[in-house]
């Protein structure tokens, strides 16, 4: 038995990635997710409008954080702020009763807000405000989860399947064959990614259709906005797949790496835990994950009909990520594909040629 144990440890020592996964990863995961896994919300961005805005704003206590006070604005402005994701709660003063509007796509903040509002009258002895939850009035979990899960499923398909597809070419030696063929690196990458892009797009339509049909998730917004966000998001995930493949010698390594990239997206993208509740130390990780932005777009468009003008930030950041990730993937993939392209030393006698004379 000891021979076996010694051999196993010896092999393990050579496989640094697995060792890292077994020792470093659990520690990192525990620390990161310990800070991230937080359902309680301490700060809810709130906009206060109407004639009594100044007074209401002064009376609001934590968790409400007043971000805007506009005595001249009315309910329309309040709704626009929620729709555009600028605030999660809106207090509309004036009229017979003060109204509080909440953004139902933000499950945990809304639950926190409801709890805080319920305590208000007892403390102050005044009439309770009328609370209205917009976009997801029954706070149905599946309405919030489906748009996010759609993105998560695309991360799986995009990252894992793409990386496996490319690594398989490396393992079977066909990548080397592609390298000697008269194909440009970008054609190989584009040709490699395009089929997965199409399959993933079909998948996305399917997921959204099932979400709408089975879970009755609304699709309130613009299909074009959603498609743009999804396309950019898919490019990032597929680019990550190619990038992983350039860092992996075999399918096992590719799967390991893909999981290291996918796991944080599950927990840190705002899919389950609100990004705003995460400790500042780990929140920045959320902001480099493409899923964070896709979820913002998909929830916004599907549930709240957020217009593209209010989503330029996540869309723009996804575009930046797409350029960076795909760019890196292409650079690294090209290095694999055409080592001789750098400072070619090959030459040919006059007449016949490297330049490509056809006999």
């Amino acid at each position: 038995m000891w021979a076996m144990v010694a051999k196993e440890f010896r092999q393990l020592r050579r496989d640094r990635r697995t060792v890292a996964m077994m020792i470093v990863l659990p520690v990192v995961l525990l620390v990161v997710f310990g800070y991230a896994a937080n359902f309680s919300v301490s700060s809810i961005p709130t906009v206060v409008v109407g004639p009594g805005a100044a007074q209401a704003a002064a009376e609001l206590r934590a968790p409400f954080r007043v971000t805007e006070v506009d005595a001249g604005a009315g309910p329309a402005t309040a709704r626009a702020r929620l729709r555009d994701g600028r605030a999660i709660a809106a207090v509309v003063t004036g009229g017979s009763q003060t109204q509080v509007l909440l953004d139902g796509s933000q499950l945990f903040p809304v639950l926190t807000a409801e709890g805080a509002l319920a305590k208000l009258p007892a403390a102050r002895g005044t009439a309770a405000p009328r609370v209205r939850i917009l976009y997801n009035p029954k706070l149905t979990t599946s309405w919030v989860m489906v748009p996010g899960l759609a993105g998560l499923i695309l991360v799986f398909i995009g990252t894992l399947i793409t990386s496996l597809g490319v690594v398989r070419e490396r393992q079977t030696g066909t990548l080397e064959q592609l390298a000697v063929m008269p194909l440009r690196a970008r054609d190989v990458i584009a040709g490699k990614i395009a089929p997965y892009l199409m399959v993933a797009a079909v998948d996305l339509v399917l997921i959204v259709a099932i979400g709408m049909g089975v879970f009755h998730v609304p699709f309130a917004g613009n299909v074009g906005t959603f498609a743009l966000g999804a396309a950019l998001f898919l490019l990032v995930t597929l680019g990550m797949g190619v990038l992983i493949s350039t860092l992996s010698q075999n399918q096992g390594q590719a799967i390991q790496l893909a999981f290291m990239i996918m796991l944080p997206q599950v927990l840190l993208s705002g899919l389950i835990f609100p990004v705003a509740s995460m400790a500042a130390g780990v929140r920045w990780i959320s902001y480099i994950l493409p899923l964070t932005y896709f979820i913002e777009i998909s929830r916004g468009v599907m549930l709240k009909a957020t217009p593209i003008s209010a989503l330029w930030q996540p869309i723009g950041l996804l575009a930046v990520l797409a350029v960076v990730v795909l760019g890196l993937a292409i650079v690294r993939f090209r290095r694999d594909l055409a080592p001789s392209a750098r400072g070619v030393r090959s030459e040919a006698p006059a007449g016949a040629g490297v330049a490509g004379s056809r006999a």
Partner: protein
Amino acid sequence: MIWGLEDVRVTFGRRTALESVTVPVEPSGITVVVGGDGAGKSTCLRALVGLLEPRAGTVRRPAKDRTGYVPATAGLYADLTAAENLGFRARAYRLPAAERGPREAEILGRTGLAGARDRLGGQLSGGMQRKLAVGLALLHSPQLLVLDEPTTGVDPVSRAELWRLISGAAAGGTAVAVATTYVNEAARASWVVLLEAGRVLAAGSPDAILRAVPGAVGSARASARPAPRSWRRGADWRVWAPGGQLPDGVTRTEPDFEDAVVVAALAGEER
């Protein structure tokens, strides 16, 4: 030299894989790079097709669309049929659509795989895979055909068929470079490069290598090894005497090509 390597040095990190290696590959000729495992054969061929960049020296090769390469792994798509493999290759090399069908049929015929056109690459036998791989490399009528151990692990009949394919390509004017561990295959070459630990031990036509054997070669029927510089050939021992003075009990014989290669290796060790 039309194609080939000239005075090439290849390094991997600090390790030198090839040191001033010259491998000429002429049209209608077959250059065989022969050597043991780790001698640098694959590195030679990979440098020749541009898969790695030499530190020094000159590589002469035609454009990518005029070069055919079969890696040691055959480089087939196991989950595509023989015909689909050919179809992909034909499009990647931009064969005119009208030529594709006839050309693919011709290759299947030449490789004897017409009956296997709809079988998956992964389901073909080892020998059939190699034949298909060589056929794929010939599809676009390359000026330079580079084959990395095309016959390793292949049965004798398939080996003969593979060599018929290779000779046929050379007869058609293609310049062919083949790496092999089988010394007897080198006898088919028009030029042989004997490689050992990244250096050229001997190079030339098989005849020239044979004529260049220094000293004397003899044979002995003995149960034990008769001399330090000796090796098994069938039931006999062969003995090489660099000075020409064979030990007692060893009769002088005319060395064949295989003997010549072994002598070159021994001479290289002693140098």
